[in-house]
C-alpha cells in the first residue's frame, strides 16, 4: 500500500514540470484572455466594462471585414493547396526515378522560415524591379502592383484584393508540399491487396481513384482539412511580412486594410494601438470561431471518413 502511494507521488512529480508549463502558458492565458476582454485595458488594466468590448466588435467595420477576409483566405487557400498536394502525391506514388529529389523540392518551402520566404516573394512581387513583372513584361503584358494593389482581382471593390490574392498564392506554395508528404504517407498505407483486387474486378484509372483510393485516403484528407483550416484561420507570419510589417515596433501597412485578416486585426489592435482588452475580446471571438469551425468540420465530414 505504501509503495502505491509512493509511486503516485512520484508520478505526480514526473508530470509536474510539463503540466506547469502547459497549464501556465497555454491553459491559464486562454482563461485570462477572457478576463482581460472584460476590461478597458490599454497599457495598464483599466475600468471593468463587462461585455462592452464584444458589443463594440459587433459593429466594428474593420473587425467584420477582417473576419470576411479570413473566410476568403481560408476558402481560397486550403482546398487549392490540398488538391495540388494530392495531385503531387499521386504522381510521386509511382515508381519513378528522382522520386526522392522531387519530394525534397516540393517539401522544401515548408521547412524554411516564413519570414525569409516572405521577403523573397516580396522581392519577386516588387512593382519596380520584381521578377513577376519582369515575366509579365517579357510576355507583353502590363506590369502589376501585386502586394501594393488594394483593388480586387474579380471586381474592383470585392475581396480578395490583388495584394491578398498574391499572399494566398504564396501560402499555397508554402504548404502544398506538406499536404503532398502527408497524402503520400496515407497512400503508402493503403494495402496493395485491396488495389490489386479492385484491378482484377476491372477498376482502373479515374474509377479506381474515385471508388477505391480516395475513400481509403479519407482519414488523411479529413485530418489535413482540419489542421489546414485551423492553420489558415490563425495564419500570421506570411501575411504580416508580405503586408509590409517590418520593424519591431512597426505595424503592417497593408494596402487599405485589404490584407488585414482576423489574426492581423488582433495583432494590430494589441501591438500597434495597445488596446489589450479590445484585442483580447477579438482574439477570444476568433478562438471560438476556430473551435466552432473545427466542430462543424467534424460533423460534416467525419461521417464520410472511411476507416479501412
Amino acid at each position: 500500500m505504501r509503495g502505491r502511494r509512493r509511486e503516485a507521488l512520484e508520478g505526480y512529480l514526473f508530470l509536474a514540470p510539463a503540466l506547469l508549463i502547459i497549464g501556465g502558458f497555454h491553459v491559464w492565458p486562454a482563461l485570462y484572455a477572457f478576463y482581460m476582454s472584460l476590461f478597458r485595458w490599454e497599457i495598464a488594466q483599466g475600468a471593468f466594462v463587462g461585455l462592452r468590448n464584444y458589443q463594440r466588435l459587433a459593429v466594428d467595420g474593420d473587425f467584420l471585414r477582417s473576419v470576411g477576409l479570413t473566410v476568403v483566405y481560408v476558402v481560397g487557400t486550403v482546398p487549392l493547396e490540398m488538391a495540388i498536394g494530392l495531385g503531387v502525391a499521386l504522381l510521386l506514388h509511382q515508381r519513378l526515378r528522382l522520386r526522392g529529389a522531387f519530394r525534397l523540392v516540393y517539401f522544401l518551402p515548408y521547412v524554411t522560415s516564413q519570414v525569409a520566404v516572405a521577403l523573397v516573394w516580396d522581392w519577386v512581387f516588387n512593382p519596380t524591379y520584381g521578377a513577376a513583372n519582369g515575366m509579365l513584361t517579357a510576355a507583353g503584358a502590363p506590369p502589376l502592383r501585386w502586394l501594393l494593389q488594394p483593388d480586387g482581382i474579380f471586381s474592383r471593390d470585392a475581396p480578395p484584393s490583388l495584394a491578398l490574392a498574391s499572399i494566398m498564392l504564396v501560402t499555397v506554395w508554402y504548404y502544398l508540399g506538406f499536404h503532398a508528404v502527408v497524402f503520400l504517407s496515407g497512400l503508402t498505407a493503403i494495402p496493395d491487396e485491396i488495389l490489386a483486387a479492385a484491378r482484377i474486378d476491372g477498376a482502373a484509372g479515374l474509377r479506381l481513384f474515385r471508388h477505391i483510393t480516395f475513400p481509403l485516403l479519407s482519414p488523411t484528407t479529413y485530418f489535413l482539412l482540419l489542421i489546414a483550416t485551423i492553420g489558415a484561420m490563425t495564419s500570421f507570419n506570411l501575411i504580416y511580412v508580405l503586408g509590409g510589417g517590418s520593424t519591431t515596433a512597426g505595424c503592417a501597412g497593408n494596402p487599405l486594410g485589404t490584407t488585414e485578416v482576423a489574426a492581423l486585426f488582433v495583432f494590430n489592435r494589441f501591438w500597434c494601438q495597445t488596446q489589450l482588452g479590445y484585442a483580447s475580446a477579438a482574439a477570444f471571438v476568433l478562438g471560438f470561431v476556430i473551435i466552432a469551425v473545427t466542430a462543424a468540420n467534424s460533423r460534416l465530414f467525419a461521417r464520410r471518413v472511411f476507416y479501412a
Partner: protein
Amino acid sequence: MPRPRRALIYAVLALGAVVMAFPFFWMLSTSLKDEAEATAFPPSLLPAQWLFSNYAQAWAAAPFGRYFLNSAIMAIGQVALSLATCSLAGYALARMRIPGRGAIFSALLATLVIPPEVTLIPNYISMQRLGWYNTYLALIVPFGASVFNVFLLRQAFLQLPVDLYEAAVLEGATHLRYLWSIALPLIRPTLAIIALLTAVRAWNDFQWPLIITNTPDLRPIQVGLTVFRSDVSTNFQWLMAGSVLAVAPVILLFLFSQRQFIQGIARAGIRG
C-alpha cells in the same frame, strides 16, 4: 506504365519543381548581384559577376552573429527543456500507477483546441509580471513542453514491452533509473524526431520573439531579418543575402535528416 504517360508525369513534376524552387534560386541569384544589377529591369536571371562579398557586407551591416547565437540558444533550450519535461510526463502517463491518470491525459488532449492566437496577449502580460520580458527565459520556457510531444512520447513508451520494466524492477531499479538507462535509449528515434521538429519550429518562430524582445542582443534571426529589412530597404542584394543566411542552417539540417523529418511530419502532422 506506357512510355508517353511516364514522360508526361516527369514533365509535370519537373515543371512544378521549377516553380517550387524558383524563389530559392531567386534569393541566391539576387544575393550575388551588384546593386545596379539587382535593381535592373527587366532583371537578369543569373548575376553577371558572382559577388560573394555581399554576404560579408550584409553580415557586417547587422549583428547577424548575435541573431544566430540567440536563435541557437532558443532552439537548443526549447529542445532540451521539452525533451526533459515531456519524457517524464509521457513516461508517467504510460507506465506509472497514478490515480486520475486517464483524466489527466484526456484533459491534456482537450487543451489542443486552444489556438495560440488567444494566449498571445496574456502570455505577454505574464512575461512582464514574471520579469522575463526581453530575456532568454521568455524565449525558451513557454515552449518547454507541448501536449503533442507528451502524446508522442507516451505512445513510444507504451510500445516498449512490459517485461522489460518488470525485469528492471526485479534488479531493483527505480522508475527514474529505468527511464534513464533503459527506456530513453530505446526510444531514441522518437526523441530525434521531437528534437528536430522542435528545433526547426524554434528557429523559424517569429510572432512570439517579435513581441517579447526589444533589444538586438536578445533578438533571434527571424526578427533580426525584419529589422534588417527596414534598415537596408533598397539594398535588395544584402537583404537576400541575409535571407539566405537565415534559411541555410535549416535547409542543411533538413538535407541531412530528411527521412526522420518527413516521418515526423507524416506522423505528427504539425503545421506552423
